[in-house]
């Protein structure tokens, strides 16, 4: 094609190139060495520049690698911190358990322990929850003005709004007074708010005005591990709020919320429910905890009202000695 137009022909240029190459193979070193030195001296500035650039690049690469390594190290440290916090919480709960057992064990080591019967014992009064039909009957029998608390009518907002209050068929005729705790099993349903002669209004724990001091606890194989104390607040919804629990205490979903109100009266912990969610406040000083009661009022027929009373065995045994020591006014005040 273009072969004829090429001048000189390609093969001629190739032959010339090959002849030159062949000739170079027998070039003496006195000619070869200056050629090599010349090329090396020409290349040397470029090599120096490349060396500087590569060293600079290696420094940058090392910096990036160090940054990556430090990032990885930070992640490892974060994981370790999370593990240590978990251990810390476990040890803290263990310490709480041991701190409760410790004094008894320490005392028992050097003296004989004489357990005493409790001074106050609970009495449980059984009552039934009144529905709309029962309240209508009471109204029809004209017992409303005498039987209902404070003359409240059944269709009024207080009684009818069963989401925050219920009516039970026990009142002052059973020595009920406002403030007594209402249970179902060992779970607190609420407390007596108003009493009539035959009926009482129970303020449910979900009521927005409901308050109580509580303590968190966790079930373990060794029993309950007690946690921090706080305040339970009703919110008007199914979820209740727990406040005033410092962030250094461990809190987990599922922890029991135990009432401190009946401490010293009821030996079994009375619970409100379990922790639903827990998260720290923005300043990380306290926990924001939401809990849920396991009770559903619509499914309940009857409830129990806790009434503390003096232990008869102790009051009877002490009475003679008080009578003997007539001069001790303080004793008389204590047991009257």
């Amino acid at each position, binding site marked *: 094609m*273009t072969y004829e137009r*090429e001048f000189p022909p*390609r*093969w001629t*240029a*190739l032959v010339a*190139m*090959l002849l*030159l*190459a*062949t*000739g*170079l*193979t027998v*070039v003496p070193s006195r000619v*070869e060495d200056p*050629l*090599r030195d010349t*090329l*090396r001296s*020409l*290349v040397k500035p*470029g*090599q120096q*520049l*490349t*060396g500087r650039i*590569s060293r600079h690049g290696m420094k940058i690469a090392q910096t990036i690698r160090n940054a990556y390594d430090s990032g990885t190290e930070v992640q490892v440290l974060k994981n370790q911190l999370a593990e240590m916090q978990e251990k810390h919480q476990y040890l803290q709960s263990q310490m709480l358990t041991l701190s409760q057992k410790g004094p008894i064990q320490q005392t028992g080591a050097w003296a004989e322990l004489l357990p005493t019967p409790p001074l106050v014992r609970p009495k449980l009064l059984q009552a039934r929850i009144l529905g709309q039909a029962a309240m209508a009957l009471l109204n029809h029998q004209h017992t409303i003005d005498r039987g209902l608390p404070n003359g409240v009518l059944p269709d009024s907002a207080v009684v009818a709004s069963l989401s925050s209050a219920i009516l039970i068929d026990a009142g002052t005729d059973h020595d009920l007074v406002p403030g007594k705790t209402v249970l179902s099993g060992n779970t607190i349903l609420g407390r007596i708010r108003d009493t009539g002669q035959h009926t009482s209004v129970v303020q449910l724990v979900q009521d927005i005005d409901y308050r109580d001091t509580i303590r968190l606890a966790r079930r373990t194989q060794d029993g309950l591990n007690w946690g921090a104390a706080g305040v339970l607040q009703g919110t008007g919804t199914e979820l209740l709020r727990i406040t005033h629990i410092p962030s250094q205490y461990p809190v987990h979903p599922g922890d029991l919320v135990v009432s401190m109100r009946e401490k010293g009266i009821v030996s079994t912990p009375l619970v409100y429910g379990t922790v639903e969610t827990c998260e720290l406040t923005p300043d990380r000083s306290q926990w924001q905890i939401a809990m849920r009661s396991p009770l559903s009022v619509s499914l309940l027929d009857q409830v129990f009202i806790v009434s503390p009373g003096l232990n008869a065995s102790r009051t009877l045994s002490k009475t003679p000695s008080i009578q003997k020591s007539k001069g001790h006014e303080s004793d008389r005040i204590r047991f009257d």
Partner: protein
Amino acid sequence: MRILFGFLAVYFLTVVQTSICPLLEIYQVTPDLLLLMPAFIVVSSNSPYRFLWGGWIGLIHDLITPGPLGLAMFAFAISGYLITRIQPQLYSQHSLIRLSMISLTIGISIALLTALRILFQDYHYPWAHWPGLVAGITLYTSTLSVPLILLTAKSKHPHLSTF
């Protein structure tokens, strides 16, 4: 202008070949960028004398490496000439064909060069190592040519100019 650019490219590649390529050694194989340039010119240029670039760059190759002069010049010139004769005219700018032709040029050049060096007793490797050495350098250098081919892909055949 092209010649000036060519000289600058040769200088740059000579610097890189002598300062950076030794750092890229894998299994005693380093890429040969000085060989990559004539291979690229032979495949990409339209000049009938483009194989002469192989000869001149081969001479530079001889000067920066120990051993007798003229061996790389000889090998690069012959391989360039062969490629100019056998390069297909159809779809010659297709990236895959360019890559194949560059790899072939590199392979022939390295095969000739290493054979000559063994014959001239510049390399003390046995002939049994020769195929592996040729394949290693060819593969390594051809791999480095892929970005160069993609960057210079022409739009003459838009459907075939890239992979």
